[in-house]
């Protein structure tokens, strides 16, 4: 992988961290507000079903995770396990796709 692409991964990880910081704040605030009347699936679905706003929010949240986590995992695998090279990069790309797919499926599940 070229140094240029590695630099872009670094930039994307930091930009996605900024997005995640906001998303986590909204997420925590929502949880604190939502559980005040007890936590139920019906209550959650009542908020999210058909809501374009929540669909957009959780889609951004999931995509930011799918970008941020695999790039960090890539560094951890290199530094802790000594796993470098193309095989590691394909592995973390697969992790990114899996996180995005599972996350977006969940988002679609609570929207539709």
């Amino acid at each position, binding site marked *: *992988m*070229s*140094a*240029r692409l*590695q*630099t*872009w991964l*670094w*930039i994307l990880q930091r930009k996605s961290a900024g997005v995640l910081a906001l998303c986590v704040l909204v997420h925590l605030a929502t949880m604190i507000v939502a559980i005040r009347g007890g936590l139920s699936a019906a209550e959650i679905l009542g908020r999210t079903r058909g809501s374009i706003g929540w669909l957009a929010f959780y889609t951004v949240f999931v995509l930011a995770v799918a970008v941020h986590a695999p790039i960090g995992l890539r*560094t951890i695998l*290199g*530094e*802790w396990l000594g796993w470098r090279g193309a095989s590691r990069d394909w592995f973390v790309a697969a992790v990114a796709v899996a996180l995005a797919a599972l996350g977006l499926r969940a988002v679609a599940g609570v929207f539709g």
Partner: protein
Amino acid sequence: MAAEDSTSAAGGTLQVRVWRTAKGAAGGGEFQSFEVPRLESQTVLDVVTYIQRNLDPSLAYRFACRVGMCGSCAMTVNDEPRWTCRTHVDAVAADGRLDIAPLKNLPVVRDLVTDMREFFDKWARALGRFSGAKTRKEDFARVSPDSPARAEANAAIECIGCGVCYSACDTVAWNPDYLGPAALNRAWTLNRDERDVAQDERLRAVAGDAGSLACHTHLSCTERCPKHISPTAGIAGLKREVMRAAMKGKL
């Protein structure tokens, strides 16, 4: 740097353990114990020299100036990288015990002597040499000492290449290709020098997994640098410049 009341510790004996490489075996070794008389204003280098001259002449170590100018006597003292010539025993061996080992993150040649080739090769890889465009026939470049760029370069310029920061760096230990604090600090000073014409090329050399972006900002280099330089600050500056260059399509 030295403890003020160095006379109080004079007299008595120091229990010193010195790393010795195994004969004929690559990479192996063990600590050997010595008893060394404790003296007034004694440095760790004095202790090593005492052992080599009086107890075991086969001990290999490296030093030159003895006054903190050359950067050749750095070793691991009680698990921390230090200049042995500028480290008073009183400051590090309060209980009368000293463990002296070679610098970490570098191959050991023998006993306390490390092979510095990789360390300096990384300076070359980081394009740590000045590239000017003027000839000697042209007038001097006039650089204001007050300009922000020159002030930043001056803050980092006094490095003497002793390897203490490199030995203290976790990232070097985890990522052997990482250029390390000293080479990146050097690259930073050159990229703050308005006379240098290879700055874009140097940014390309310090981008990516082995370059400035790999720094985790643990600040070990900054904490241990005997010249009180902050390579971490320079590396942070390089990260910003690398990011800007990538955004502008210059990488």
